[in-house]
């Protein structure tokens, strides 16, 4: 909107649309709007922007759909969810159920005025400006005595605080950012694209529309650049930030500014990187993050086991390194991510899939870039007697530390590699035996007591690019976990 002509076009669109929405438009006005949209690209763009704004205003002022979702979730309308019948059940059955549902969900349209929803009444002033997020899930939440409680699908306005001692809350910000908070937590909604956490564990997924979302804590400010990340704010205010996908910018906001410690420059964290920000403004390394440390969305992978097999993983690397080892408690599955800093996936080498004895066991996502560290030592703390597995690429020779203590099971697992600078044409596919790029041999070692096992480096071949770090997995040691090769249908010759 830069000039008089633009204003005139806007007002013309406004006049035609308002008449139409009020039911007052003449046939000539409808034809004028049709012609405008059809013949002028500029008018069409302006119309789309105008209607987008109109829809947002209507949504904010009228709660167009919150009642729909509420109905779908409440016991009284349970058939709404149960209506997801197989398509084979027939179109007639589907239409019949759909008709019942639509009638049930459209009280404002189909029912008498006396039972119409509140949107037909005079709305409270200012309501149009306030709602910025929707609370979509509560799981075992115990609200604090002094805090306000909220119900599922309630709208959250700027300044709303969520204080709870236990349980999980999931919020969807209107710009599409999905946030799961695990208590004890103190969380404040500050704007449509901004929140504050004084305590708690948080996982955020930010899509394209939500880039720029800001999460502030007593010690740090996290600016999301399109990603999935987790944050833990401790009672002292120190803040751990881990990035599982995409990028975030991390800066220091704590009270160090007036103290003796110099403020640190902001850090950009990439996939597979994490840092701890202390209240004195210092950055520290987070060596290991288990998958059950942070909350996950409903429907995502299952939580961890009661007695972890892999307790901790650490290396002898430089203390400034940002990358972390991720222990995946939910277990190895088809298409499980293999490394924290790549999107490669583990898969069965053929359609039979990942060998049964490996399926569902705990595994570690190391950094693929560890393959370059010549004197690498990776220490794996096992919490119980276990079988420790190492997956070594057939592209590299077996190192002495591996052949000395481990046995090659003759079982293989595949790596489905995503695009890299060395393999620009690669892409991943779902499921076993599809798009497997590199075969890894599965090596095993029985560890009869809880202890620490130290693994060494891999031996890169000179002049060869595109090789991979090894994988690590572990299962509790049982009498049945001895002879994988004969037990598994996934053995390749």
């Amino acid at each position, binding site marked *: *909107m830069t000039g008089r002509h633009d*204003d005139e076009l*806007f*007002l013309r669109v*406004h*006049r035609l649309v*308002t008449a139409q929405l*009020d039911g007052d438009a003449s*046939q000539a006005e409808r034809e004028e709007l*049709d012609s405008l*949209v*059809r013949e002028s690209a500029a008018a*069409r763009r302006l*119309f*789309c*922007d*105008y209607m987008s*704004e*109109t*829809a*947002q*205003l*209507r949504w*904010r*002022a*009228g709660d*167009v*759909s919150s009642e729909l*979702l509420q109905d*779908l*979730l409440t016991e009284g309308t349970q058939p709404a*969810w149960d209506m*997801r019948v197989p398509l084979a059940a027939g179109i007639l059955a589907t239409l019949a159920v*759909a008709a019942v*549902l639509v009638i049930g969900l*459209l009280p404002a*349209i189909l029912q008498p005025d006396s039972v119409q929803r509140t*949107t*037909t009444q*005079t*709305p409270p*002033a*200012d309501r*149009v*400006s306030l709602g*910025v997020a929707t609370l*979509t*899930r509560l799981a075992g939440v115990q609200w604090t005595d002094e805090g306000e409680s909220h119900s599922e699908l309630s709208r959250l306005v700027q300044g709303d605080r969520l204080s709870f001692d236990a349980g999980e809350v*999931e919020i969807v910000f*209107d*710009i*599409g950012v999905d946030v799961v908070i695990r208590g004890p937590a103190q969380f404040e909604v500050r704007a*449509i694209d901004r929140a504050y956490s004084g305590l708690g564990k948080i996982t955020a997924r930010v*899509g*394209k*529309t939500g*880039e720029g979302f800001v999460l502030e804590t007593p010690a740090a400010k996290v600016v999301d650049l399109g990603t999935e990340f987790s944050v833990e704010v401790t009672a002292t205010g120190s803040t751990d930030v881990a990035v599982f996908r995409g990028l975030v910018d991390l800066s220091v906001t704590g009270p160090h500014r007036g103290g003796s410690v110099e403020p640190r420059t902001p850090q950009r964290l990439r996939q597979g990187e994490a840092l701890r920000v202390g209240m004195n403004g210092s950055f520290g390394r987070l060596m290991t993050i288990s998958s059950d440390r942070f909350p996950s*969305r*409903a*429907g995502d992978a299952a939580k961890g086991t009661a007695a972890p097999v892999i307790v901790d993983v650490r290396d002898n690397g430089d203390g400034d390194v940002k990358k972390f080892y991720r222990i995946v408690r939910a277990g190895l599955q088809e298409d499980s991510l293999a490394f924290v800093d790549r999107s490669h996936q583990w898969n069965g080498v053929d359609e039979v899939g990942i060998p049964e004895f490996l399926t569902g066991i705990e595994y570690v996502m190391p950094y693929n870039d560890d393959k370059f560290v010549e004197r690498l030592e990776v220490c794996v703390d096992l919490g119980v007697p276990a079988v420790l597995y190492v997956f070594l690429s057939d592209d590299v020779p077996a190192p002495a530390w591996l052949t000395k203590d481990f046995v090659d099971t003759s079982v293989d697992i595949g790596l489905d590699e995503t695009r890299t600078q060395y393999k620009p044409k690669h892409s991943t596919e779902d499921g076993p035996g599809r798009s497997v790029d590199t075969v890894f041999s599965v090596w095993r070692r029985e560890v009869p007591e809880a202890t620490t096992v130290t693994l060494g480096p891999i031996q890169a071949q000179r002049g060869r690019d595109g090789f991979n770090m090894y994988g690590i997995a572990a299962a509790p040691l049982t009498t049945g976990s001895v002879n994988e090769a004969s037990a598994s249908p996934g053995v390749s010759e």
Partner: protein
Amino acid sequence: MSLDDSKATFVRLLTQSERRVYGYILKMVVDWNDADEILQETNVRLWEEFDRFQPGTDFAAWAIRVAHYQVLTWRKRRDRSRLVFGKAAIEALAMEQATANTVEGSRQAALAECLKRLSAVNRDLLTRCYSGAGTIRDVAGTLGRSTEAVYKMLQRVRLSLHKCIEQRLVMEDA
């Protein structure tokens, strides 16, 4: 995924994308009641077909495709003389959607910020005009003002809001 997990996932995805879907439908039909009805039908269809949705792909884009077919179905049963747009305009608007997706989130955020800059009186006017409580004439009656006066006020507020949004989007790009 259990049914409960499936429900929770669906609610989350729908909550994230429903207003964009609604915006798409309203743009196509320019009628409050019809847009509400098509949105409900679309939501029903989305849940029916949710087994076919591939996790990790763009739910909003999928939902808008479903909404598009619901709009076309609605047009077939609607009296042609009551339709605002002909086939050519509908196709042009559908094409426009592809480029609008990337800035939709920014536009929502900008609108939220710009609403805060409006006076309480102007926000109240927007609330009354877009809450579904009635027409401009009804709002004028409630406020004790003439229809023409309310219409002018609304026109001025909408233009001001739109300019504010555009300015914020330009600043964001700079």
